[in-house]
């Protein structure tokens, strides 16, 4: 356990360094990115130097890094050039929506994927299994934004039964239950697109593990004991499939938070971290990029830790391993 925490600390520091360095190594500087394009602005020399000074852009990189670390230690994750607001406040206004969307999509796709995977593996080679396998394989081939656009065109534009965009109706004056309903209505399509894309991963993994496990002697024993099919399927085989699925979900969370969310968020104009990161990249808003990477890092490391701990529950051998 001790080693574990040192590992996490090292990983955290390296990510911190990279998230500081990478945006700054890109060509293009924030002052030009934010102020250069708009030709109507009068950028006087005073204003330029004042901006560079207030953002510490005129200091050498290593100094900027130490200033960043010092501020971080005080709990200040930076000040956004573009949003003209503390990074924490910017990120916090976007984060809940992504967590809502990604969290539900991840949970839903994992549960559905595991159940279909178990059922499919159990019926290996039968028509049910084959149909599901083909269906899932083709689904996984579609990019999330493609499914999203198809849904949007069908349900919102053509049929007009679901909202066109956003996470809630602006200034509808709703509260309480109707507001919740409104948020859910907006959530359905992006959630469905993400779930459909994510589902194939956990499905394939569960199915494969299931097939392997079904060949194990303890399954034969369980069957020989005269246990009911369902008990063997879920209690004996199913539970043992969880290990790789949990790992994969844990690892996938971080990458999906950014990549998966980005496209779907853009398609549905959903206000989340994907949109924020993308815009900050275009505006060379280093502090927001760092800040959102930092928060995602904390999430990913936290989830990895949770997965590590969950492992011990799922497989006691892990805890005893030296």
């Amino acid at each position: 356990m001790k080693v574990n925490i040192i590992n996490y600390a090292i990983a955290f520091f390296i990510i911190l360094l990279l998230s500081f360095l990478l945006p700054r190594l890109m060509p293009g500087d924030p002052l030009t990115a934010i102020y250069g394009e708009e030709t109507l602005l009068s950028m006087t020399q005073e204003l330029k130097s004042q901006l560079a000074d207030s953002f510490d852009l005129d200091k050498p990189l290593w100094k900027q890094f130490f200033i960043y670390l010092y501020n971080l230690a005080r709990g200040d994750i930076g000040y956004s050039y573009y949003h003209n607001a503390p990074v924490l406040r910017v990120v916090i206004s976007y984060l809940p929506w992504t967590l809502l969307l990604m969290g539900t999509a991840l949970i839903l796709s994992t549960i559905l994927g595991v159940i279909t995977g178990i059922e499919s593996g159990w019926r290996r080679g039968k028509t049910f299994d084959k149909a599901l396998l083909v269906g899932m394989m083709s689904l996984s081939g579609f990019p999330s934004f493609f499914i999203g656009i198809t849904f949007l065109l069908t349900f919102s534009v053509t049929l007009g039964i679901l909202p066109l965009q956003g996470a809630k109706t602006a200034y509808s004056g709703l509260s309480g239950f109707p507001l919740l309903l409104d948020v859910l209505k907006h959530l359905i399509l992006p959630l469905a697109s993400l779930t459909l894309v994510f589902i194939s991963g956990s499905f394939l993994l569960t199915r494969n593990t299931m097939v392997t496990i079904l060949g194990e002697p303890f399954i034969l024993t369980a069957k020989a004991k005269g246990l009911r099919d369902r008990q063997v399927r879920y209690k004996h085989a199913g539970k043992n499939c969880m290990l790789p699925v949990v790992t994969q979900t844990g690892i996938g969370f971080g990458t999906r938070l950014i990549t998966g969310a980005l496209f779907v968020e853009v398609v549905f104009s959903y206000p989340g971290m994907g949109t924020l990161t993308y815009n900050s990249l275009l505006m060379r808003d280093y502090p927001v990029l760092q800040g959102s990477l930092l928060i995602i890092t904390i999430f990913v490391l936290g989830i990895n830790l949770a997965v590590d701990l969950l492992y011990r529950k799922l497989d006691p051998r892990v805890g005893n391993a030296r």
Partner: protein
Amino acid sequence: MYKRAAEFTIFTVLAFLAFTTVTSVLAVTYTIADPTGDWGYPSLYGMYPRGSGYVRMSLIFDTLVWKDKGGIIPALAESWVYMPEKNAYVFNLREDVTWHDGKRFTAADVVFTLNYIKQHPWEWVDSNIIKEAEEIDEYVVEIYLSKPYAPFLTNVAGTLPVIPKHVWEGVEKPDQFVSEEALIGTGPYRLSDYNKAQGTYLYEAYEDYYLGKPEVDRIKFVKVSEEIAPTALKNGEVNASSVPPEILDDLRSKGLEIAEEPPTWAAKLIINHKKEPLSSKEFRSALAYAIDREKIVRIAKRGHAVPGSMGLIPPSNRSWHNPNVRKYAHDVARAKGIIDDMGYTTDKDGYYHKDDKRLEFELLAGSVFREEFSRIGELIKSDLEEVGVKINLRGLESKVADARIKNWNFDLAVGGHGGLGGDPVALNRNITGGGFNSARYFQNEELVTLLKKQLQEMDIKKRKRIVYRIQDICAQELPAITLYHPMWYWAHDGTVDIYYTDGGLALGIPIPINKLSFLEYHKQR
């Protein structure tokens, strides 16, 4: 029978009465779609430095003068006069203006604002233009300029919003002043909500506005992606939105009205004129003859643009456009002739060579982020290669390309900028200015001198002559090649008269959201 008719009449009258009372009680809300959504806190220093940020701020704050369809009109100032002997403007202010907190607006606020931007630079107005401001009496201000500055009325008096002295006095960090107090203005609207993540704004009409309470009670800005905006318009979810040109006919057939922007933007072939042979103006003119700009308009813009004026100012800017500049009609033979005269010979690969070196350039032309530029890049490549100049296309993310242009690390690039609909100070910004959008061209002394001179010429007729001459020289020298001026459109339901302000909003913002529109509302639907 008569009874029936009477009953029917009474019923209709009652229904009509009920209907009118209901509609008059219901507040009028106007919803505007925006693909980006968030443009920052709509205070002077909180908004993002972009046109859309300015529009959101301009609903809350007023300037000394403003513009409508026809040009400059009085706003906080009732009248003004320029006194050449003192190089100063005198503004007589309205006496019936109140701040949103109820306090009276006076000359002291104007003087304070001008001094404030001297201490705390504000991106939109160069405060060096102003020497000092003096309060003559409670409602008269005299503003002394450091040098005569011709664009003063539109670009300073018509752009700088006046802020209340009693609120801003003692505010040392204006960019971090984002409380409700920072939004006390004199404008027709007050902000009642701003949601950064959702990209939404809600404004309520200010009852005591000096031109009367606006008829539109609430204005909403909501985030709607470009692709979805037309559907949202047709469904009536939004009242106005910018729209792509391809769907104009469809929208018109659904009863929507279209506002067409007089072009203010220019797409340009940016040339590294510090590099051989691009440094030769003859060679640049060969490029201009070789590129078929009409074809670019037809194919890449599907006709929704006008071919670029080599004098940079588009024909739609009627006050300043010089129609007689050199035109460079597509002429392959002429282009070849010029390159032949420079000592280049065609090799067996079909391209020009000199001293065993092929005449070839790298052309930075958009990427997935700027598909339009990629299409234009392809067309330019085929035109130039037809003449015998080899072109290597390169797609770069726009900020990367901007950085390379800024550092002169390129040959040719497709780029562009706006700001050409208003005052010709735009010529200075884009020919001798310091930004990457500028050609940064100082090789022609007359051009450099005239650019300085036009800013100080307060006589409009004389200034016009200078501006015409600048465009002439520009078209001969070709610091860059103007490719086309695109047309942009907004669609709306007609309840509010949405129009493009003459010369652009304030100092030339090409967005048809002018606060004056909302003072009137036509019950159409």
